[in-house]
């Protein structure tokens, strides 16, 4: 065969393989591209940024002694049924009754994860399972928590629980598991839908309104205004954790 014909047939072959390769590549990539598009389309929410910092205000003057609607609502929302073993059952939020040692004044308040800006639990976690979202919500990644409980040693509020036994009746929006640590998520699944945490809703429904949820960064928002106008405190302020939960009347 003359050299020019060889060259021509080689060129044709190259073009064929190039086009065939491009076709195969297109066929291989298209579903992925389509999937990515679908995923993008399904994600109609903005990614979490530090534009917001979600927080709570607890008005102890409105928190009724003996009322534990917030605790019940949390347990219901997250399926915290308990095994009737108070020392090992999970408690994401608890009511604490206080009495002033000098004046004898009594008050009652809910205590939960304070969603610190500088969370000691996040600092000490060896695997990074304890983490703080950009919007300030402190969470546990249940997939990489190894159950060492160092975060529980570090938490200054006893806000965390270790799951001491097998669980049943879990909620799909609040996955839990034996052998890992958990705590108040500030009802992140509700917050991401633009709703308020279950405890806040329950307190409001009960007519107390002792819990106010909002954005600490939104200067025109109710929570930020309250913090400006009212005298509020963060618990264990000596540790300079800049908690997202603030209390009045303590």
């Amino acid at each position, binding site marked *: 065969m003359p050299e020019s014909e060889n060259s021509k047939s080689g060129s044709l072959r190259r073009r064929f393989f190039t086009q065939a390769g491009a076709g195969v590549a297109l066929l291989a990539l298209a579903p992925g591209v389509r999937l990515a598009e679908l995923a993008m389309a399904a994600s109609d929410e903005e990614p979490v940024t530090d534009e917001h910092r979600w927080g709570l205000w607890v008005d102890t003057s409105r928190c009724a002694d003996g009322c534990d609607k917030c605790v019940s609502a949390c347990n219901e929302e997250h399926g915290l049924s308990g095994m009737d*073993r108070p020392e*090992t059952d999970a408690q994401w939020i608890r009511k604490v009754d*206080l009495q002033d040692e000098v004046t004898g004044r009594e008050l009652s308040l809910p205590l939960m994860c304070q969603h610190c800006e500088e969370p000691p639990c996040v600092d000490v976690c060896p695997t990074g399972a304890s983490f703080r979202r950009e919007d300030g919500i402190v969470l546990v990644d249940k997939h990489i928590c190894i159950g060492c409980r160092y975060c529980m040693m570090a938490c200054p*509020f006893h806000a965390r629980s270790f799951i001491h036994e097998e669980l049943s009746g879990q909620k799909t929006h609040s996955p839990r598991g034996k052998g890992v640590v958990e705590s108040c998520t500030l009802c992140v699944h509700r917050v991401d839908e633009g709703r308020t945490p279950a405890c806040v809703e329950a307190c409001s429904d009960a007519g107390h309104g002792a819990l106010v949820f909002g954005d600490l960064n939104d200067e025109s928002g109710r929570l930020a205004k309250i913090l400006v106008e009212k005298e509020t405190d963060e618990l264990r302020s000596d540790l300079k954790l800049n908690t997202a939960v603030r209390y009045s009347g303590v």
Partner: protein
Amino acid sequence: MSRGTFQIIRPSSAFWLTAGVAAALALLGFAGAHHMESTGHWVTGMNNRVVWGLPHVFAVFLIVAASGALNVASVASVFKKTLYQPLSRLSGLLAMSLLVGGLSVLVLDLGRPDRLIIAMTYYNFKSIFAWNIFLYTGFLGVVAVYLWMMFEPRMNRFIGSAGKVAFTWRLVLTIGTGSIFGVLVAREAFGSVVLIPMFIAMSLSFGTAVMLLAIILMFRMSNLSVKDEVVTRLRSLLAYFVIAVAFFVAVDHLTRLYAVGYTGVERFLLVEGGIYPVLFWAGQCLLGTVIPVIVLLTPRLAGRLPTVVASLLVLLGAFAQLYVLIVGGQAFPMDIFPGYTENSSYFDGVVAGYHPSLPELALGFGGIGLALLIALLATRVLPFLPQAPADQPGG
């Protein structure tokens, strides 16, 4: 051989009996861990207030003792004390076996021990725990290389360098272990930098006590002799290390007693806290410090039996100390609301209860059994022990 000759242990009935007991303990430990993991930690005495219990007392003891056990090898290679060179291999072996025992307890107590690979692949470098994973595994590697330098005649010239690396590594390792508690600012009993030098002193004390016991018992088991001078010097060293621990313990308590706001936790740990003051005064101070120091510094009590008793008492005091520190430190309630009395369903404001359970105890002793078993079996397959007389220079 210029550095002395070594031998594989000649197994006696005592050797096999001890190995059998160690294996049984290790098996019991695994059984305890299996029960804890399959049923859930509610079967232990640990709870949401006392999250670290007996397994952690045992694990910290073994890890701290591991770094101290390397002391004899360090003295021989780094500080050129040839008297201790025949014991260098045993020193390195004990350091590794104790660490493996301690880490096993720590890992088997995890809520998810099956996720160990996650602990090895996900790191939060702000966490001292994450650094400790490197320090512990690295220590095993460094000591393994160190031992290789000792075993391989062609590598003997590198013993000094390897010894220096191992010595530095073990110091950093103990700093890391002390920091686990030293960085915990939330709890009044922890969060003190004094814990760091205290842990170094503890490692020297616990490790030397283990080493003395190993030398006397293992050599007796294999009908080897160890020259009195080695034991005599280690006795003195142990006494001074115990005194050093006591000094840092005193400084730790005195600084808190002096600081306003910390007297509550001191009153709890030293006077009113039930089991904790008893363990502190009777266990740590009297049995673990005063009596062994007197025995170790009294020439008339320089025999093997008093030395074994004194070393065992130091170890008993070590457990008492770690129990008071780790469990007592958690049992004392955190002062979340200063100036108020607290009452809640989560035991705020009250002393937390902790009742150690059998599976925890089994796991803890399992760690000791595993460490002992590794050490015994290693001496059976490799020449770790010196030819008699044991204190011949070289090695």
